[in-house]
C-alpha cells in the first residue's frame, strides 16, 4: 500500500521556496555554503544551489558531506560503503552552512553531521534544510527549512525518488 505525497512539481516548488527562505534569512548568498548529505541530500543541495544562482545571479558555494564514519549505529546495521565528501575550497570556517538532507526522521544523521563538521572547522552558523520532515525525533534537533511536514507512523516508510537515480522525482509513503 503506497501513495505519492509529493509529485515532481511539488518538489520543485518546495525547493524554490526553500531557496528564497535561505536567501531571506542569510541576507543573500555571499557567505553561504550548502552541504548535501549523500546520496539524495547531495542531489537536493545541488538543485538548491541552481535555484539560488537563478535568484541571485551569482554562484553559491556547495559541496557534499558523508557522515558514515560518524554514525552511532554502525555496529548494529549492515556494512555501509563510504560516499564521496566534497568540501568547497573556501572551507567551512566562518561560513553560514546549510546542511541538506532528504528525509528528517530520528535526527541521528544530523547529529553525526555535526561531529563531521567539527573536524572541518568552525562554521558561523549551521542551518538545516530537509525535503520531508516525518517526525519521531530522538534528539533535540529541528529543521530550519522544511519542504513538507509529513505526519507518519513509525511502521510506514518514506521514500524519496530523485532523478537521475530514479526515473522521476516523487516522494512516496508506504506501509
Amino acid at each position: 500500500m503506497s501513495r505519492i505525497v509529493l509529485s515532481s512539481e511539488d518538489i520543485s516548488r518546495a525547493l524554490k521556496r526553500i531557496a528564497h527562505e535561505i536567501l531571506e534569512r542569510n541576507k543573500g548568498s555571499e557567505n553561504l555554503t550548502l552541504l548535501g548529505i549523500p546520496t539524495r541530500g547531495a542531489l537536493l543541495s545541488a538543485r538548491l544551489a541552481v535555484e539560488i544562482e537563478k535568484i541571485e545571479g551569482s554562484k553559491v558555494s556547495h559541496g557534499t558531506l558523508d557522515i558514515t564514519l560518524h554514525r552511532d549505529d554502525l555496529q548494529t546495521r549492515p556494512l555501509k560503503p563510504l560516499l564521496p565528501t566534497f568540501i568547497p575550497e573556501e572551507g567551512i570556517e566562518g561560513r553560514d552552512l546549510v546542511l541538506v538532507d532528504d528525509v528528517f526522521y530520528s535526527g541521528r544523521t544530523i547529529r553525526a553531521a555535526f561531529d563531521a563538521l567539527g573536524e572541518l572547522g568552525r562554521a558561523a552558523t549551521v542551518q538545516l534544510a530537509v525535503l520531508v520532515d516525518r517526525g519521531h525525533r530522538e534528539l533535540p534537533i529541528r529543521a530550519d527549512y522544511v519542504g513538507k511536514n509529513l505526519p507518519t507512523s513509525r511502521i510506514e516508510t518514506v521514500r524519496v525518488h530523485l532523478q537521475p537515480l530514479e526515473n522521476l522525482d516523487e516522494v512516496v509513503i508506504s506501509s
Partner: protein
Amino acid sequence: MIFPRHLLSVDDLDYDQAVKVLDTASELSKFSGSSIKKLPTLRGKTVVNLFFEDSTRTRISFEAAAKRLSADVINFSVKGSSVSKGESLKDTALTLGAMGADAVVIRHHFSGAAQRLADAGWISGPVINAGDGTHEHPTQALLDAYTIRSKFGKDSEGLSGLQVIIVGDILHSRVARSNVFLLTKLGAEVTLVAPPTLLPVGIENWPVKISYQLDPLLSSADVVMVLRVQKERMVQSFFPTEREYSRHYGMNSHRLKSLSGESILLHPGPMNRGLEIDALTADSSRSMIVNQVTNGVQIRMAVLYLLLSSQQVVGEEV
C-alpha cells in the same frame, strides 16, 4: 554491501570488493590532510598486531590506521613475549581472544598461519593477514594497486590495460603472489622477470607472462615493481654473485632512462640499496616508494573499516 569476514588472501575479494577497498581508501585519504586526523568510527574496538616476524612499515602502518579510526591497539612481538618460552600459536591466540581482541593482524614466518588462526575458532573477530611465510600479503597488494590506480586510473575503476613488470625474487615473495592475483583480477597485464632459480614451481599456471630478461620490457612498462632480494630466506645460492644479479635485474639510473612516459617505480620495502635498486633510482621522481607508505595507512584504514565497522558481518559465528 557484503565483505568477507577475514582478509587472508587477495582471493577472498572479488573484483567489486577489491575496487570497494580502493574507493574506501580514496575517501579516507581526504581526512589525512585535515587538522584532526582521528575519526570516531572504531571507538571501543581493540586491534591486536600479532607479529612473529620483524616488520617496520606494516606494523606501524596497521597501528596508525587503527589509531586514526580510534581503535585501541595492542602490539605483540615475539621478542620479549612468552613465545620465546615456547608458547604455541594456539595458546597465544586463546590468550588474546580471552582479553577481548576484536581483530587480529597477524604476520608469521609460516605460510598458512593466518588461515589456521581464522579457521581454528580460537578468536572470534576477523583475522587480517599481514604476510605469512612465502604465501600472501594482501594489504601490500591492495596498497600497490591503489598507488597504481591513483597515478593512472580513475576512481571506481580497475587497472585495465596497464603493463606491470614485477622483477626480482619471485620465489620467496608473498608480495609478488598477492600482487599477481590482485593486479590481474583488476585487469592489469603482469610480467614476472627473474632468473629461473628465483621463479617458483608451477608458475606456468599463473595468469602472467614470464621473462628472464628485464631490458627489452622496460620501454613498454607502465609500472616496474622491484622486489627485495630476501637474503634471510635464502638457504642456498640462487645466483652466483650479488654484482651479477644487480647487473641483470637491478634497477639503476641507466635502466631508468629506458622507461617511457608516465611510468612509475614501486618497491615494497625494505630496500637493499645497491642490490636490486640503486640510490639514484630509489630517490628519482618516478619512484613512488614513499607514496606507497602513505597509501598503506589509508588502505589499512579501509580494510579495518570494512571488516570491523559492522557487527552483522563480524559477529555471526561467535
